[in-house]
């Protein structure tokens, strides 16, 4: 009996190691719920306050649409909103086209990693630095008058890396043998692109456009530097909110409306990119 234990093997502990104790799983679950609440509760609260009589009181109650009525009878926000929409659409379109052209070329490079890295770095350059840099370039170096055009340019520089990454999701996966198959069946290069490559890349291109629009539509930091005297919608809201005027309640309504428009748009992007692309 004794000789059998001469190796002195330690029995395997029936207890799990602390790293795999069940408490972590529970903590992960409840911590996750807490995070989700932290994200969505303020948004929901904002919407509730926007339909309350006294939003600045902080507690929703005696619901009415009076602030929405005030918002729609007020025309002060129309111009900034129109400017933001126009810049957003322009940035979205330019992003989609530029990201498609560059995103199709990038995977054919010998070492695309380094080039991609350089394209993606602006994601991590602080908005203040990028805004200030573009400001200096346009204002001091080129001596140009700032306005919507410089805001749009700043937004494009900001949104392009996102658009490129999104388009790369589809261009990297694109099977170039399909192009050969198209040519082999008699299609010209033009037809092959429009009949085969473009429809397959399309979810990524549309996503890039939508994302470019959203990035521009929400942008404040770069706009502050580059706007000159022009006002975009987020800048206008920020000025109104900071000024603590009686306008504030209608800002809540405006913010709620913007949220209700952008959230479905964002869901659309992810659906296009992951559900649609994944299926084919």
């Amino acid at each position, binding site marked *: 009996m004794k000789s059998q234990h001469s190796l002195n093997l330690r029995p395997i502990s029936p207890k799990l190691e602390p790293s795999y104790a069940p408490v972590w799983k529970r903590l992960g679950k409840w911590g996750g719920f807490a995070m989700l609440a932290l994200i969505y509760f303020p948004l929901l609260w904002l919407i509730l306050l926007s339909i309350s009589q006294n939003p600045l009181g902080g507690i929703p109650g005696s619901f009415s649409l009076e602030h929405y009525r005030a918002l729609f009878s007020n025309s002060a926000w129309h111009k900034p909103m129109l400017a933001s929409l126009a810049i957003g659409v322009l940035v979205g379109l330019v992003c989609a086209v530029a990201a498609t052209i560059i995103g199709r070329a990038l995977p054919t490079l010998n070492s695309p990693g380094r080039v991609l890295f350089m394209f993606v770095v602006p994601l991590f350059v602080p908005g203040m630095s990028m805004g200030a840099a573009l400001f200096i370039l346009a204002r001091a170096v080129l001596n140009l008058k700032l306005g919507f055009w410089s805001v749009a340019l700043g937004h494009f520089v900001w949104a392009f890396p996102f658009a490129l990454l999104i388009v790369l999701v589809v261009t990297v996966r694109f099977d170039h043998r399909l192009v050969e198959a198209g040519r082999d069946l008699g*299609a010209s290069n033009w037809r092959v692109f429009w009949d085969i490559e473009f429809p397959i890349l399309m979810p990524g291109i549309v996503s890039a456009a939508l994302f470019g629009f959203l990035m521009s539509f929400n942008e404040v930091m770069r706009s502050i530097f580059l706007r000159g005297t022009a006002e975009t919608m987020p800048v206008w809201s920020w000025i109104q909110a900071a000024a603590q005027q009686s306008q504030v309640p209608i800002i809540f309504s405006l913010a709620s409306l913007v949220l209700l428009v952008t959230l479905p748009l964002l869901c659309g992007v992810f659906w296009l990119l992951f559900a649609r692309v994944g299926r084919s």
Partner: protein
Amino acid sequence: MNNGVVDPMLEIEDLVHCYGAVTALNHVSVSAAKGEFLTILGSSGSGKTTMLRVISGLEMPTSVRRLRIGGQDVAHLPAAKRNCTTVFQSYALFPHMNVVENVAYGLKIRKVNGPDALKEARRALAMVQLEGKADRRISQLSGGERQRVALARAVVTQPAVLLLDEPLGALDERLRQDMQIELMELQRSLGMTFVYITHSQEEALTMSDRVVLMSHGRIVQSGSPLDLFDRPESRFAAGFMGYENILEATLVAQDGTLGTVEFPGGLRIRGVVTADGLKVGGTVAIAIRAERISPVSAEAPESVEATLTNRIYRGKYTDVTVATGAGPLRLRSWHGVGSETEEIRRVGWNTTDAVIFAAQ
């Protein structure tokens, strides 16, 4: 090499293709007649796929004296303008189109109007027994079904030449054998010229009217499947076609195609000389298939003394190795044959089963 083909659908003369410093095709000439099933056989790197890409126009050759498809000079035409289509190894079906749209694409490009193109495409799908799946997405099809869609898409435009690039490579054994038969039947019923690329000698022998064996960018031998199987003209061809016994000896006599070789121990064997220009007194190779050798008892005409050295049971057959005056020989006896377990003293074969060609 293949001149004299009547009514040629494909003519290639003196084709050279280089990738940088690598010569993928080295002065190759091939032609295929109308309705012929031509197989280009070779291992990877033999240049067979390059040949296919040059024919289809996906690759422009470094130089070629003549390249014609259906009588039309296509040497300078892009792929889209050539009257040939390809069944790709990867199938390359368009994932965003359903089955019938894939098949109809070539017709759409040729400006066949919508309803006619779809009707034609459905007919092509019926030909490959897929009419019931016309409206499926490509991702819903099995490998074998994708294969058929690729085939239907390529034949629906009625090209002068259909190119097939190892189309059965991705299928499992059973399906591959069924598809071989189907492909042959389809080719006969369409009367279309097929140029089929494969590395499998079994596929080449089963389906082809003519086989072109390639190695290192050159044509090693071309002829009927039977020619390649029984009359290899070189050591490479014999090895590729599965000859288990290839032995070196000295050619001591040649009378027409009948040659006699002598081994160092003095043993003499007769065989069919398949190569030209062999010198009596020179070193040659003689090859015999394992399954053509069997144990013999009496003094059979073509036989040698043998001692059993090894016996490996392989299910359907048994591989036997014997030592002889010619060196070690492998023979194969089918399971159930009486000689399977008995003692072996002599092994023999028919004179026409031994082939003699240059040693290198």
